[in-house]
């Protein structure tokens, strides 16, 4: 097989197998990437994409299989060797030193003789970044850069090392729509010059607009190869999830009622110097509507959720629920008034990993008659837990399974079910479908809409713009702890939302919109 290989094939994987205890992450994967090709690697969380990337980049060694690089079978021992071969990778979480400059960060990954000549390096950085449309000042400190700019540093770092295969792991998940457009322009230029790109994603529309070919993984195997521009997004989704899973929700229009939640000039100062502070957040939420908060991760989403849940207490401002100020109440007291929270981390905050599902029901639902005079009523706890499992289709062996043994999607269904069964008046959900399989995501969306139709007010914090546009009737964005105005989804163009995500709005505008 290796004999008839043409030079145009840059990377060929044959029958890659990688096994971890209790799971076969890669189960005989074949993959071919040609020179200059933008190749998408699609699949749900847990399909084996990341493991495969780690195999190519030398982070882990495959148990079986062959890697052929430019026609030669190779053994990639470690990332340093991968880089010498011309493979560059940009991880989802960047590996940059905040306290160093762009040039210093790049110099760290170069051979000493190249790193020493700083002025020449600065010039090279400027050249490369200009050529590919990624403006970058080599002298700036990383801590002053936006997430999009940091990603550029990572990409430029790869390009300076004469990379011929660039691996990008979910590169758009941290970008605003405008930044995505400019990243794609860069990638297309690179591709024209012969650099191959492996683009890992689960966003189908992006893949369709950018990639020449796509390989879809499901449960560690290749479930199909396709040319994404030629087939529809739902056909690709089918390949990702298999035949019997619904892949979208039909959302009816909301009928908002009276105002339930009023947040006025909420300020909270972070004690962590690299943390995000909340700055004059104003927000109104009506019964029977879903309001979405977009934003790039780390712009105050978690802080806003904690301020609403009571885990942190704001320094100034008011939070009122039907006119009652709840600002000084503890989380469990707020819960008694009908506030339900679905936090971003489902394991290790929303649920205790080593405790049973029944015990995890007790975590937030103790007020539902599950505790009497300080004693736990085990039978009721189990009944409540079984009810959640049944009504929300949680796949598990019963209420005694530990939370940690459930898949992300099933645990999330359980957590949402636990909150929903308490008939909340206000539900704040953060990234409810992040890392969740498509089938569970649909079920979660349906239960949110059902809660909304029953009259609950829902605040949906998410990075997934498709999700926000699909479910919400008003949208806004958080940037650096400031909340943009909220606009009706139907009137809010994605460009405008992108500007809000980048912080381009006036605080006075917000105050005006609220008043």
């Amino acid at each position, binding site marked *: 097989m*290796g004999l008839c290989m043409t030079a145009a094939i840059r990377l060929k994987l044959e029958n890659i197998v990688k096994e971890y*205890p*209790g*799971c076969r992450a890669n189960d005989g994967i074949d993959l071919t990437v040609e020179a200059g090709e933008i190749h998408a690697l699609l699949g749900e969380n847990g399909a084996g994409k990341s493991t495969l990337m780690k195999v190519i980049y030398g982070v882990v*060694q495959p*148990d*079986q299989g*062959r890697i052929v690089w430019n026609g*030669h*079978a*190779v*053994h990639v*021992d470690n990332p340093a060797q991968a880089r010498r071969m011309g493979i560059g990778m940009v991880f989802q979480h960047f590996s940059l030193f905040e306290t160093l400059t762009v040039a210093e960060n790049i110099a760290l990954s170069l051979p000493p003789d190249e790193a020493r000549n700083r002025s020449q390096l600065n010039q090279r950085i400027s050249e490369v970044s200009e050529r590919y449309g990624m403006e970058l000042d080599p002298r700036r400190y990383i801590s002053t850069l936006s997430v999009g700019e940091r990603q550029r540093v990572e990409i430029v770092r790869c390009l300076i090392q004469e990379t011929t295969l660039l691996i990008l792991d979910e590169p758009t998940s941290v970008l605003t729509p405008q930044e995505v457009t400019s990243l794609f322009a860069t990638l297309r230029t690179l591709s024209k010059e012969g650099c191959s790109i492996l683009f890992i994603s689960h966003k189908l529309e992006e893949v369709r607009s950018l990639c020449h070919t796509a390989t879809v993984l499901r449960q560690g195997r290749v479930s199909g190869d396709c040319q994404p521009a030629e087939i529809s997004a739902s056909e690709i989704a089918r390949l990702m999830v298999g035949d019997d899973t619904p892949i979208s929700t039909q959302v009816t229009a909301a009928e908002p009622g009276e105002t339930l939640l009023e947040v006025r000039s909420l300020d909270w100062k972070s004690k962590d110097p690299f943390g995000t502070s909340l700055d004059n957040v104003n927000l109104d939420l009506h019964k029977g509507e879903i309001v979405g908060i977009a934003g790039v991760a780390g712009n105050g989403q978690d802080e806003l959720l904690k301020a609403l*849940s*009571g*885990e942190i207490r704001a320094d100034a401002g008011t939070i009122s629920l039907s006119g009652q100020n709840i600002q000084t109440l*503890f*989380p*469990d*007291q*707020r*819960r008694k008034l009908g506030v339900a*929270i679905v*936090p971003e*981390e489902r394991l*290790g*905050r*929303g*649920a*205790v*990993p*080593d*405790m049973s599902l029944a*015990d995890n029901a*007790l*975590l*937030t639902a*103790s007020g539902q008659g599950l*505790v009497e005079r*300080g*004693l*736990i009523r*085990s039978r009721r706890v189990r009944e409540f837990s079984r009810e959640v499992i049944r009504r929300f289709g949680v796949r598990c062996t019963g209420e005694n399974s*530990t939370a940690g*043994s459930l898949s992300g999607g099933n645990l999330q269904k359980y957590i949402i079910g636990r909150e929903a069964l308490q008939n909340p008046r206000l539900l704040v959900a953060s990234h409810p479908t992040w890392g969740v399989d498509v089938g569970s995501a649909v079920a979660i969306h349906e239960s949110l809409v059902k809660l909304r139709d029953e009259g609950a007010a829902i605040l949906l914090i998410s990075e997934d713009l498709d999700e926000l546009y699909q479910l919400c009737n008003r949208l806004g964005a958080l940037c650096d702890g400031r909340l943009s105005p909220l606009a009706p989804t139907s009137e809010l163009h994605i460009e405008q939302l992108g500007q809000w995500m980048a912080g381009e709005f006036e605080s006075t505008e917000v105050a005006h919109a609220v008043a």
Partner: protein
Amino acid sequence: MLLLERRPVASSVMRWASPLLALVLTVITGFILFLVIGKDPVEGLKFFFITPISDLPGLAELGLKMAPLLLCAAGLTVCYKAKLWNIGAEGHFLMGALGASVMAVQLSAVSGFWVLPVVLLTGVLGGMFWAAIAAGLKTHLHCNEILTTIMLNYIALNLLLYVVHGPLKDPYGFGFPQSIMFAESALLPALIEGTRLHLGLAFGLLAAVAVWVLFARSFIGFQLSVIGQDHRAAAFAGFRVRQLTWFAFLVGGATAGLAGASEVTGPIGQLVPQVSPGYGYTAIIVVFLGRMHAVGIVAASALLALTFIGGEILQIAMQMPKAVTALFQGLLLFYLLTCDAFIHYRIRLKKAAPQPRSAAVAAAPQEV
């Protein structure tokens, strides 16, 4: 090749098999040690493990040593479930003994059924007071409880030594550092007539039952477990971590204080400098050996009580040094922690990595 790999799920069999395995390994190591120092190992192990419990007085002695261990361990369980690493049971115990002794000496001239409860209560309060210092340092100044409780243990010991050499010293005691013998009304009644076994063991068993109810049935116990397993989930649920921390420390102080009070009003009958052979420290081993479970700590306290008595017998019968008790306790804890690794990990024989077919493969297969 041997490979230590993480189990997909923690082994519930190993969780309970581990203490037994540790005990077996301790016995085997003891056997070898006896051989090395030229003593008869069968004889030695028999003196250590069998002789002490072969008759009723022996069993009563076992119960006598169990009582303080069980009481201290019950309180520590409440702390450790919440991952509050209170090492201060020894200090609480000493303060309990001290408090009870001061009250018993004050009331030496009075008699009445209320004297004993008051004396015991003073001991409980003494232990709680000592635990409260560590609790306050933790909740208000974020001081690490391991360090504060250890240091407080030494302060308690020196305080006790000062009192027993000074204010409470028996003026007619020929200069010995000890208090007067307590009056009859301040002494714990015997549990079995004719032996030294006293009511303290009943307190210990009651405490074990209370711990069982706390963690199997009560919401407070549940909240403590959540704090121990997942601090952020506790904050998310809105549990009052600060109050619960105080609760755990105060319970720990109360039970250890009661243990100290029971010791001076029970077998000793007065305050002496050597009131504890390290019960508070040994109780830590009891909690871990007993898997932080009520039934487990009862069994474990019996076993550790045996090491105290067995050690004494070995000193007398085989002229072994006093350190033999600490040696066995240390071995037991060491093996327990080792065996506990296999709750979450397992050993696997690694097959040689498959040889790739292509000759062009640059490097040899990876060996781990």
